[in-house]
């Protein structure tokens, strides 16, 4: 049933030239990127457009006193200055909680704060001017009296009796806590053959989209509409947000999102400065542009992954996992971020620890607290790299304690490939995973014996190399169980409208969005395959709330699985409609006809009967010649939502081969492998590149990236020279392999592939480093694994 064959779904035979699903078709929208002809939000220039810049809080926590705007208003080119009070007149605050996260709380957040700044970098006053430079000059001329207040920066003390309570009306700094407990954890640890434990730290990261956050809001007083050009992952969600908080009808707000210069989760959240821009446009009645600069990006883009995890693992004498016991703590900044909330990442840690393994006893608690640092929220592979590093770090410790090979302990514990459907201890339901097949595939790719021999030989020369593994699961194709049931207007369904124009060309508009991952390419492939036309005859429209079916956009790896299925269903429906019309024209039964490469053919013989161009001519210009009662609308829309499973889990395993210089603490990445199972692979090249890019973002977290604050809450990593992201010279060659276990929820069978690389890479690298350091009796569990931390672990520095 789940094979895409002519018999199963009425498509053309797979060997036809337009059988694109599963082929590495180059992206139709790539040539404009390589020629500099894309349109990013900053490339859009509108008549009467003005530019915004923000004065941002220099303090982690401060009362906002008098704001003197006179000097700023005197700066050449400055048009207007807006304070929190000014914007509150037209814009309502938001509170980012979800009903299904029991007990969750957060404080109301305004586009610009009314009385207190709660993190360094929070936008406080806005200046609008004729140019960005003039707006910045205006900001420099503002005089704001800040009264610094004690800052709560350390998550470990956020709940202490003497903590600074950031929002007194909340009573304390606790945002959310959840414990999942199944089985007899205490008993399992008491009877264990070995217990291993460690304290893990994951660094505070941010996304560093190369295109910073960008927005132009244009309020037209004549027709009462707000048009927003926005670099965003979720145009429809933002349409709802702008409408609700600016007290407008959703239908009067249009969000247009052309090319997006990277998102990775950074651009799916509501940022106060961006809402301020919309509010200012509403007041001014003219377009206002705001392009965050890199300093603003570091201080005000969401951060993520700031976790401290204490974890234990109990195993029996055969190396079987008896129990995991995990205590996760995360600091999320002063507000939960709207509308997804900042409790999801901790919640994911609870859902995902131990995920690849078959065991019974589980306890995991997450505690989510407020602090005076930049807000954190969902960033690529939300919670996965944390849970994977904890799980896989413990597995390697257990293997070491048992004297067992790290591959062997995994083989003994990975959920069997025939065990599905399977429900994990924290309640995740797996439809079908392939851990053992993936491990086997990985071992075909990684020359383990050769590597171990090389490692042994190198150690004799004082060269320390290590091989590390990390199995993982990844949550994709989310249903409304992720956000919708909590009350958020975040759509888990998505739609696609496919139409045939008179020349036989196809136009498909979809609610999922293109961020560079290749969404438009796979939609074109799927539609071309589904209708039966060359892929070059398909045009894709995304990123416009006024012209695309309502959908959720890009998040949680849903583009192929949800958007792709909607596209496939609508393409099949259009094909059936075309064949009905063709049947009437050709005096043939529609079932006897097919469409191949833009021609209506005889299904049995493959003989060409008519071109779609000719069919289009008749339908659109000589409809008088068709039977009066013939349905001839060559346009079809289908929406898709998953129904059986809350999420389509994927799985995979990575291996990392590194060399550690014990004298300098430097880690050299030698080679990296990943096998992942994202179900049906629509475009192998694009999936491989998603995995590779994801691995490198994982490497960033493992080795380089860290938003460093001092104890007062001052951000120290404010430039690209301080916050280190991976560059080409240090990156390894990466090998990607696939196992395909399609989901049965859809015809297409695709699951998500965008986060697998990021989910597994840090754990694999950590285990590889620790494998290298093992003869030196050192190990590290605190990311990023900097030279300083490695030298400390080695005792080279105190």
């Amino acid at each position, binding site marked *: 049933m789940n094979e895409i064959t002519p018999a199963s779904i009425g498509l053309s035979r797979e060997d036809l030239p337009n059988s694109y699903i599963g082929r590495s078709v180059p992206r139709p929208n790539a040539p404009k990127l390589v020629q500099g002809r894309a349109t990013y939000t900053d490339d859009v220039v509108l008549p009467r457009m003005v530019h915004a810049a923000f004065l941002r809080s220099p303090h982690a926590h401060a009362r906002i006193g008098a704001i003197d705007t006179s000097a700023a208003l005197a700066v050449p080119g400055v048009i207007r200055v807006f304070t929190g009070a000014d914007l509150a007149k037209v814009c309502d605050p938001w509170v980012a909680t979800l009903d299904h996260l029991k007990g969750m709380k957060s404080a109301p957040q305004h586009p610009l704060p009314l009385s207190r700044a709660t993190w360094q970098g929070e936008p406080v006053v806005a200046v609008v001017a004729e140019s960005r430079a003039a707006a910045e000059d205006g900001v420099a001329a503002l005089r704001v009296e800040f009264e610094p207040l004690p800052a709560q920066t350390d998550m470990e003390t956020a709940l202490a009796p003497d903590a600074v309570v950031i929002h007194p009306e909340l009573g304390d700094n606790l945002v959310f806590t959840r414990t999942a407990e199944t089985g007899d954890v205490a008993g399992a640890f008491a009877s264990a053959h070995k217990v291993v434990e460690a304290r893990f730290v994951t660094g505070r990261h941010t996304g560093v989209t190369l295109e910073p956050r960008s927005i132009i809001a244009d309020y037209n007083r004549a027709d009462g509409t707000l048009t927003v050009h926005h670099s965003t992952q979720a145009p429809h969600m933002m349409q709802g947000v702008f409408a609700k908080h600016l007290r407008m009808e959703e239908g009067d707000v249009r969000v247009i999102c052309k090319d997006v210069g990277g998102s990775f989760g950074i651009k799916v959240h509501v940022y106060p400065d961006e809402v301020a821009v919309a509010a200012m446009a509403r007041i001014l009645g003219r377009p206002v542009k705001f392009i965050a600069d890199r300093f603003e990006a570091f201080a005000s883009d969401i951060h993520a992954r700031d976790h401290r995890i204490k974890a234990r693992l109990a195993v029996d004498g055969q190396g079987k996992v008896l129990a995991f016991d995990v205590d996760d703590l995360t600091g999320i900044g002063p507000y939960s971020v709207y509308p997804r909330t900042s409790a999801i990442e901790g919640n994911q840690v609870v859902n995902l620890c131990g995920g690849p393994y078959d065991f019974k006893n589980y306890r995991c608690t997450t505690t989510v607290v407020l602090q005076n640092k930049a807000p954190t929220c969902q960033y690529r592979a939300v919670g996965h790299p944390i849970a994977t590093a904890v799980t896989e770090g413990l597995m390697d410790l257990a293997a070491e304690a048992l004297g067992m090979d790290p591959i062997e302990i995994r083989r003994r514990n990975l959920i069997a490939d025939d065990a599905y459907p399977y429900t994990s201890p924290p309640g995740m339901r797996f439809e079908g995973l392939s851990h053992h097949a993936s491990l086997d595939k990985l071992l075909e790719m990684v020359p383990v014996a050769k590597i171990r021999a090389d490692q042994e030989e190198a150690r004799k020369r004082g060269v320390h190399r290590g091989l590390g593994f990390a199995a993982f699961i990844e949550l994709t194709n989310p249903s409304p169980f992720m956000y919708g049931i909590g009350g958020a207007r975040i759509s888990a369904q998505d739609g696609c409208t496919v139409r045939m124009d008179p020349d036989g060309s196809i136009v498909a508009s979809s609610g999922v969005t293109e961020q560079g991952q290749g969404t438009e390419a796979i939609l074109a492939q799927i539609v071309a395959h589904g209708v039966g036309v060359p892929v070059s005859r398909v045009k894709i429209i995304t990123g416009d709330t006024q012209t695309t079916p309502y959908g959720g956009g890009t998040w949680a790896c849903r583009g192929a699985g949800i958007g792709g299925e909607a596209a496939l269903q609508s393409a099949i429906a259009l094909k059936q409609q075309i064949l009905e019309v063709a049947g009437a024209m050709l005096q043939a039964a529609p079932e006897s006809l097919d469409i191949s490469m833009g021609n209506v053919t005889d299904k049995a013989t493959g003989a060409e009967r008519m071109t779609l161009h000719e069919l289009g001519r008749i339908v659109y210009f000589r409809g008088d010649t068709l039977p009066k009662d013939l349905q001839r609308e060559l346009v079809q829309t289908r929406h898709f939502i998953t129904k059986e499973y809350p999420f389509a889990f994927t799985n995979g395993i990575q291996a990392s081969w590194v060399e550690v210089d014990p*004298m*300098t603490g430097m880690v050299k990445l030698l080679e990296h492998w990943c096998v992942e199972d994202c179900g049906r692979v629509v475009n192998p090249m694009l999936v491989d590149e998603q995995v590779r890019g994801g691995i490198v973002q994982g490497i960033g977290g493992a080795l380089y990236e860290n938003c460093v604050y001092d104890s007062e809450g001052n951000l120290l990593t404010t430039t690209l020279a301080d916050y280190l992201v991976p560059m080409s010279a*240090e990156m390894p060659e990466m090998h990607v392999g696939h196992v395909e276990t399609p989901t049965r929820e859809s015809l297409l069978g695709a699951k998500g592939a965008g986060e697998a690389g990021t989910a597994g890479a840090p754990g694999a690298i950590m285990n590889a480093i620790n494998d290298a350091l093992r003869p030196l009796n050192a190990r590290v569990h605190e990311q990023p694994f*900097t*030279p300083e931390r490695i*030298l400390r672990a080695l005792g080279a*520095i105190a």
Partner: protein
Amino acid sequence: MKWPAMGYARAASLPDLWSVLAQHGSAAQIIAGGQTLLATLAFRLSEPGTLVDITRIPELRGISVSSGVLRIGALTRHAELGRDALVARHAPLLTAAVPLIAHPAIRNRGTIGGSLAYADPAAELPACIVALDAVVVTASAAGERRIPARDFFTDLLQTALNPGEIIAAVEIPLAERRSAIQEVARRSGDYAMAGLAAALRIEGGRVVAPRLVYFGVGTGPVLAARASAALEGRALDAASIAAAQAALGEDLDPPQDLHGPPEMKRHLARVLTGRVLNGFLNPSEIAA
């Protein structure tokens, strides 16, 4: 951020420069390649009144050898330095340093004069010219000065340049010497966590005039007097290298930075000392 509002003037010659500088006084800020200055303007750390562009002053260009010195004009861009045959022959330390400086696009604009004048403590070229015992030739309306490189760097981002004075050239004495540069940087092209530019001669099996100059570990290039002295007159071997490493502790007073504590920089400096000096041993010496 956008650069602040400022003026711009371009000098066509040194005499022209002196009159432009006289006109603008303390508001003037010299700009050559601009690869550091313009980045700092984007942080709005300083707001110069007028940038005075010296890149078209012919007197500041050119690389030549005469009277026993290699003269490198201040406007020599890093990329030019890296591919110049005279530099490769007479100061291969500089040739070796160039690939460590940032990235190709930066090296195409940044100049040796600019690097020395900015005096970043983690920069490679200041350390190299101290190691090579070079002389910084300066120019001003008052005339030329010749400042030994070891005296040129006075404090964090501070040099011996007077107001209204610019670097005209660097002169490196021609000598048979061994030299090497190594650094530990997080990524290719990053400023070093610690680096060492070293030059020495070996005469009759003995180390002569060793100059171990560390960067990224102090307020400027650090000529390690004690470590260098520990090598002077001794055979270069495991014992003398260990002695240099041991003596290094008192030569350095590194600051804390984002990469780690002073202790880490000391440690890395010791490691580099061993690696660079061992690199000078030829295989037969190692065997002996």
